[in-house]
């Protein structure tokens, strides 16, 4: 049996799997939705920062632009987070562990991640804990703690912070989603939701106020 024979045997006998039709439909729908979020960086970034803001803000943005983080990196990670948020709203993608018990969710992350993010239930304040999942953002496996406010889902993404990489303590709005980020110890937190900006700010306040410091 020579090399050609075995090549032929592989070609003849190895299975070529085909995508299930429902997967095809799902992805075709997904690309249609997702597509509306693609805008070339040059078009999107500048109006976003410069458009409606005053001169002071523009100057601040300008400084941030050059000194702190690369706008592309920041923009890309925001895009990734929004895509992940949208995906999480589709059937079966929201949580890997469903529990309103913080003592279930927190240990669930242990062993799956290098980080153990603080998990607290804010049910009494109107932000019940729904569960957690793992996701992949900015080349990291990240923890996502899922909360709800009325019918709105709040995804809180947590991963180790890279001091130099992103602007922190920022508020962003894209495609109808609001986003806030902050840092605590060596972790960074990004909250994404379609709740209004004030509610998201309230959520950030609760989370930062009540969770024990990490490390």
């Amino acid at each position, binding site marked *: 049996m020579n090399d050609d024979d075995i090549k032929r045997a592989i070609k003849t006998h190895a299975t070529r799997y085909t995508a299930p039709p429902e997967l095809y439909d799902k992805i075709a729908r997904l*690309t249609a939705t997702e597509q509306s979020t693609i805008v070339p960086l040059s078009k999107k970034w500048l109006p976003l920062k410069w458009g409606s803001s005053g001169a002071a803000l523009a100057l601040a943005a300008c400084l941030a632009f050059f000194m702190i983080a690369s706008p592309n990196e920041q923009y890309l990670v925001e895009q990734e987070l929004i895509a992940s948020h949208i995906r999480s709203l589709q059937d079966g993608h929201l949580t890997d562990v469903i529990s309103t018990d913080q003592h279930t969710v927190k240990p669930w992350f242990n062993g799956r991640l290098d980080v153990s993010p603080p998990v607290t239930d804010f049910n009494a304040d109107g932000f019940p804990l729904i569960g957690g999942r793992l996701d992949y953002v900015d080349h990291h496996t990240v923890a996502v703690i899922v909360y709800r406010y009325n019918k709105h889902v709040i995804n809180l993404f947590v991963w180790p912070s890279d001091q130099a990489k992103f602007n922190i303590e920022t508020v962003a709005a894209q495609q109808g989603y609001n986003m806030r980020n902050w840092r605590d110890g060596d972790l960074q937190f990004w909250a994404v939701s379609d709740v209004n900006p004030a509610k998201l700010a309230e959520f950030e306040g609760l989370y930062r106020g009540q969770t024990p410091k990490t490390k």
Partner: protein
Amino acid sequence: MGEGHDQHRFNALMLPHMDAAYNLARWLTNSPDDASDVVQESYLRAIRFFSSYRGGVARAWLLTIVRNTSLNWLAQNRNQKTVPLPDASDEDDNANQALVDDKADPEFDLIQKQAAATMDQLIEALPVKYREVVILREIEELSYKEIAEIIDMPIGTVMSRLARARKAIQQHWQESAERRISK
């Protein structure tokens, strides 16, 4: 270039390769469910990075993303059954080390199963870095150059991995064929 134009272009270029994407993900993850997730994730990434697509073979571009997404998935997921070979032996064509573990394919099973099942089993038993070149070359029929770009290795490495993988498959294939015949 308008967004609508981009969307049509993306769909026209990338959606036709979903079978190839699924096939690769299915072979690398060894699971239909995981393959579906990996393919979905890959398309989302492909959309996000579509602005970096500079023409060329769309299938190879997409498969690069699928391959990387699959490997990320494998790295994150516990149940990776194969054990990679030490890198030192990678380029050594004469290494006489068996790529396919004899114990992994019990004689009894081999005799019972059809040729296709046997072949699938032999390929599945290969460590991922050998398995991926076999799939890309023999099933997807990509060129050495395309495969080299996808796995980000020199063409020589692609060829030596393929040669080793074929040799390993051949040896076991022949044995099982003899058993099938003699039965």
